């Protein structure tokens, strides 16, 4: 390994560490998306009198859509403080390769906001009477899908970070783009409940994650350059 | 030569019982076509109005500037006359 590669890995490690430290210093960053996830999902059964069976059939869709919203809303803070204090501008000017830095930044953000959603999802499956065969695929799907959603949502965040009120606009931009992940993620649970083989769907989800992880940083970088200038 | 497929005009309007669907579709299409011509002409009129207003303001400014100048020179002349 060359020295520059080591230097790169080192600086990425620093980025990761800094992001995680920031998150743990303000626990709201971890807790808020989680609370949103749990509360929003428990609204659905209250919205109408549904039998356990009906709830079970919509459970995967409800959990996935809510996870998508939670990821998206938590992403709003991704570049906000960096933008406000000017460190984003410094980052764009720094010799450090932006592409990998952005990948690591989104990954760190996902570890703090997305991973807890995956961990707590079985509890929500329980609330919605998800059939037993669905739990494994639900968690596996969210594990592969939420980082991809984070990447996609980060594009929207980067495009709107310079705007004063961006919450609703962010949703308008990001939701249509995240449909493939939603379809295959929720579809994985359906596939399992129908007793069909899962490998193909898992492979597609993994491919979507790789695609989002490699292409999104390019778009995020371009968007940040526009937002800063 | 293709022939007219309906026995009467009212038959044509009825569209085999699907009048609201067929004519509704064509109406929606007609609205978009009309809007696609109307919007640009409205917009163009707005731009021309905007530019005319700006030009008018500019002329007005020039006029007041000229007015001011003549006023000043008149004052100057008056001052010179007073001194003299």
């Amino acid at each position, binding site marked *: 390994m060359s020295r520059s590669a080591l230097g790169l890995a080192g600086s990425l490690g620093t980025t990761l560490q800094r992001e995680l430290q920031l998150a743990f210093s303000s626990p709201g960053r971890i807790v808020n998306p989680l609370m949103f996830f749990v509360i929003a999902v428990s609204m659905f059964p209250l919205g109408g009198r549904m039998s356990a069976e009906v709830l079970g059939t919509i459970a995967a869709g409800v959990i996935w859509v809510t996870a998508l919203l939670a990821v998206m809303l938590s992403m709003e803070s991704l570049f906000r403080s960096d933008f406000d204090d000017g460190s984003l501008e410094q980052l764009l000017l720094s010799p450090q390769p932006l592409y990998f830095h952005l990948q690591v930044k989104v990954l760190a953000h996902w570890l703090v906001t997305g991973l807890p959603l995956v961990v707590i999802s079985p509890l929500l499956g329980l609330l919605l009477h998800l059939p037993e065969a669905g739990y494994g695929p639900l968690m596996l799907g969210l594990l592969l899908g939420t980082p991809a959603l984070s990447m996609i949502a980060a594009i929207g965040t980067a495009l709107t970070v310079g705007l004063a009120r961006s919450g609703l606009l962010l949703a308008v931009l990001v939701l249509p783009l995240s449909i493939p992940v939603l379809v295959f993620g929720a579809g994985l649970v359906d596939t399992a409940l129908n007793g069909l083989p899962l490998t193909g769907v898992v492979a597609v989800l993994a491919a979507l994650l790789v695609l989002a992880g490699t292409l999104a940083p390019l778009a995020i970088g371009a968007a940040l350059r526009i937002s800063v200038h | 030569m*293709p022939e007219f497929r309906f026995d009467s005009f009212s038959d044509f309007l009825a569209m085999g019982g699907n009048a609201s669907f067929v004519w509704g579709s064509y109406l929606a299409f007609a609205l978009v076509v009309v809007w696609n011509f109307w919007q640009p002409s409205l917009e163009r009129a707005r731009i021309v109005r905007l530019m005319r207003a700006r030009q008018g303001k500019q002329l007005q400014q020039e006029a007041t500037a000229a007015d001011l100048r003549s006023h000043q020179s008149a004052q100057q002349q008056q001052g010179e006359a007073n001194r003299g």
Partner: protein
Amino acid sequence: MWQWLYKLGSPRHFYEMTTGLVPWLTGVSLLLLAAGVVWGLGFAPPDYQMGDNFRIIYIHVPTSMCGMGAYVLLATMAAMHMIWNIKMADIVAKVSAPVGAAYIALGLITGALWGKPTWGTYWTWDARLTSSLILLFLFLGVMALRAAYDSESAGSKAASVLAIVGVVNVPIIYFSVQWWNTLHQGTSKLGGAGSANPPEIWIPAFFTGFAVIGLFFVAVILRSRNEILYRERRTQWVQDLLQKELTHA
């Protein structure tokens, strides 16, 4: 050819070149439209399954397809704007969004009006319908993002990035919706006009098809010309042009 394209990239040349083109394109498109609509509504033989309801196809298919083409145009122009910083490409990208969105919306409305008497429902989550709906959302997102920026240049660049991200996503969306559709079987497949149909049925579709595309470009050109006038309002040639117009009026 290249020089012609190069010239088209300058707003002033675009404006001057399209001045003579618009009346022609409008006239030909409206003539084709009149021929296609009269033929399609009155003279094409009724479909043996759908009856007279199939006459909606003559506007449904061209508007949907043109709306999809409009998104490709939007993304291409956005890419040209991002890569070569061509002003004219941004103008076309900006104005093709509302026109394309209107066409896609029209395709959805006429599709619903066609679906109700044909399959008994206004809406079904068919792959094509769903993709069109999502395409409409993408159009609206691009327009909303551009409108949210105060600065014209930042807004145009941001909208360009989103349009390009969207066009990468469109095939994936179509593929995913199609897969999802096979998982939830039960929605009937859209029956397209087969090639076995007699020419009296598909010739009017050609007429309305070219008319719809022609009218799309007329709308894009007219809106582009306004955008040029507005953006270049401080230049001498626009001032002269409007002066001439004002004295004529």
